[in-house]
């Protein structure tokens, strides 16, 4: 042990007392939670639950891997619980149909309405990845909760359909409908915001 002091020091450095968790891991865990929940209030709460669970099960942390990673694991679990609870509550509300972007994009025969999509960046147009990502983030915020949960679990967490259906307590067809609506809604939102930004830039220039 004493022959390898750096390893011991590193190990000790990764185990910090709960009083310092907020300063050390707060931002990181909060950002993660927010990237999944898109809700500051909810993110703060799952973070609080994570910390309390961390205190309760501190003895279970074996020191394998970083303490931050261990807390992230708890956080992910808390996020799943939270999303499940939220999905359960959302099911009792029947506003899902109110946010179907298909109605805006397709006519009665299922064909595109005029100028449903105009996305076609010019060959010389450089798409700024950070800028685009920010737009995607803001559009994720605007997505209805039921659709966002499906999109995040499918795309961002790369879960398979069966797992998502189980977590959200929905049928595969329901998942499919939500996923499609999420993609349509996101695409329309991102296109609109992107074009608006370009337009504003054009005016400035």
């Amino acid at each position: 042990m004493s022959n390898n002091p750096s390893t011991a020091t590193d190990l000790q450095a990764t185990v910090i007392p709960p009083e310092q968790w907020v300063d050390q891991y707060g931002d990181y865990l909060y950002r993660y939670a927010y990237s999944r929940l898109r809700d500051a209030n909810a993110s703060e709460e799952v973070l609080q639950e994570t910390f309390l669970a961390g205190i309760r099960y501190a003895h279970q942390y074996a020191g394998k891997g970083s303490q931050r990673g261990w807390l992230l694991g708890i956080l992910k679990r808390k996020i799943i619980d939270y999303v499940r609870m939220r999905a359960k509550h959302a099911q009792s509300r029947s506003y899902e149909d109110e946010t179907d972007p298909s109605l805006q994009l397709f006519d009665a025969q299922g064909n595109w309405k005029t100028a449903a999509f105009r996305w076609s960046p010019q060959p010389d147009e450089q798409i700024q990845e950070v800028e685009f990502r920010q737009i995607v983030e803001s559009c994720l915020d605007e997505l209805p909760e039921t659709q966002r949960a499906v999109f995040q679990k499918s795309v961002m967490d790369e879960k398979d359909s069966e797992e998502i259906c189980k977590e959200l307590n929905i049928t595969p067809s329901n998942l499919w409908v939500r996923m499609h609506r999420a993609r349509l809604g996101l695409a329309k939102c991102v296109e609109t915001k992107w074009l608006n930004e370009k337009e504003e830039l054009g005016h400035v220039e």
Partner: protein
Amino acid sequence: MLNDRKASELVTKSLRRTLTDALTDEESDALEKNLTDSKELEAFAKLSHKIQISAVEIATLAEHGDVTIGPGLSGEARDRLKDSICAVQSGDVPLSDAEQRLDSQEHKNPLKRTTLLPSDSAQPWPQQMVAEQGIPYQVTDDARIGESRFTIIRPLGKGGLGNVWLARDERLKRNVAIKELNAEALQSEKSWQRFRREAEITGLLEHPSIVPLYQYSFDKSTGEQFYAMRFVGKRTLADAIIEHHERIRLGERDDAGLGLHRLLSIFLDICQAIAYAHSRGVIHRDLKPENVALDNFGQVIVLDWGLAKLSEEGELVNHLSRESNIADKALAQTVDGEVIGTPLYMAPEQASGDLDHVDERTDVYGLGGILFSILTGCAPHETSSELVQSSLKEVLKLITENRSPEPSDYAQSVPRELEAICIKSMAFKSYLRYDQVSHLADAVELWMAGQSEKKSRYENLRMEGRELRADLQSSIRDLETNARFMSRLPPIQELITAQADQEIAVWRERLTTIYTGLLTAKSDYQTIAYCKIEAGVCTEVVRVERHSTDHSNIRPVPRSRLRKVKTNQFLDTVMQQKPEEVLTSLVCDADCEPQDNCFGDDDVHLVAAVPVYDQNTEEPYGVVLIDCDIDRVMRRQVSEHATASEIIIACDIHHVMMRSHFGHVVEDSISKTVAEETPHFCQAVEVLQNHLEFIDETNTEIYGARLWLNSNRHGLMYLLRSGRNKAHP
């Protein structure tokens, strides 16, 4: 060929990354063909693909702790998290409690989960706002300026839960009142819920006496909820009650009756508002004068519905459950055993936290408390010595164990009937109270109507008193006119200059004839005489008198029976008058002494006397006197005015000259003092020493009127008492 909707669905499916979701060959072919033909589909596919890459990137960056992804923890959120960890670490809060609390919030308190709301509701909560906008979570007055249509002007008041501000609605250019939670309540989740419920309940209760809500919203800068309502001014019923009792204390009794009437009118308006709320299943539970605003135009507004309880049978509870975001019905009720409200106005069942028994009659008790305050100027239990320096717990114990207070224990001159209404409203057992607020209102209204009748009766009494005085004044003017006329007759001067007996006899006869005619015409006149005054001796020249018992017998006094007496103060004063100046006074019969020297068992007469001047020498020669039988006048007066239950006519030294009971003269009272005979008139007598009238505003029973004679030196007072019963005095 697929239609566009189907094709887009295939695009979505193709973007799934798991093999199980892959497209079939047929689907791939169809999609390929559509992509070639439709630019929109191609744009959608490309864009969705790029979004997918970006979303994956966001997820990856977040996992790696990239600071460009999303917002970090706000200072406030950081503090809250630290606090909760420290509380658990230090042992102040058991870990299980902290977890349970979070758990209960999560599952039982959807209010806090504002993100569960439909996106169009856009109702950010403080923490969310803080996190999104990075604005410190604190209350600042200026923060609303520019962020909202309202500009804060100044604070109006503070309540248990919230602060109220005067604000300017910049869009509609009008002043409004804005209510928001105070700093302490902001920390309480329950306070948030109650505040919202208050706003919703207030908004759903549409009644002229319930404050109209203009807007319920959130402050953009702090995320705090607030609601804007009509600004009704700062004056509350509590202020009006204090003012009323202050006036009484300072002796402004003229306002007392009117003030009580106004306060009771306000009370009836409150009853109407509460009856309406009850009809919609809402029980206020915090009724007190401070929660009733009075605007400058007499409108009464019931405020503060923050502690209202919703009846499960009421229609409003359904509105709240369906339309509001308080989906959990349990939240619409308070926790059993919880004590809420204002202790001093609290019904026993409320003070004991027995919420199962809190119903409309609890508000009846609260209204009784307001009535109590109107009658006494203080809150129920307020001056109880047992409550001095008692803790809240002890106060509540006292309320739940002791009988309700009675107004007369706290104040004098509380109308008996009103006190009975108040006592019934505040009965310890709720089943002994009025069943409905409307019944309480009816009782008060009936009392007020009775008061109106009493007032009307009193007005009649005042009229009667004034008529009596005016009648006597008219008689006196008539007497004086006649005296003056009698002194101008030609025989008066002829008798001064006549020397021969025959000539004197002729003029005496003529004067006697005229005087006899006057006495015949004026049945109240007892005597008329023409006297010569010389060297302190009064010598009657002509005298005509009415028989003391046979009033129809009018006789000239023979020359041999004419009197010659020493002058008295009254005659000396008359002789000092200028020609035709009449002196009228109450005098004793015997020697025509002024009343204040001889009042007792003697008959009192009203005498008008005019000096007679010798036209040749222009020196005073004598007087013409007319003696009016005041007793006869008074008897006629009281018999004609039988409305008053009792009439007293008294002289300056408070001797009763006449007393009647419903028009019948009470003979044995005469010449006794007012204080001996009728002590209830003493206050009026005292006031009439310096005033022309006494008006009894408190009890509306006594009226007094003063009549001055003889240049305000002497006079009479009429004392009247109203009443319906003809019981013997």
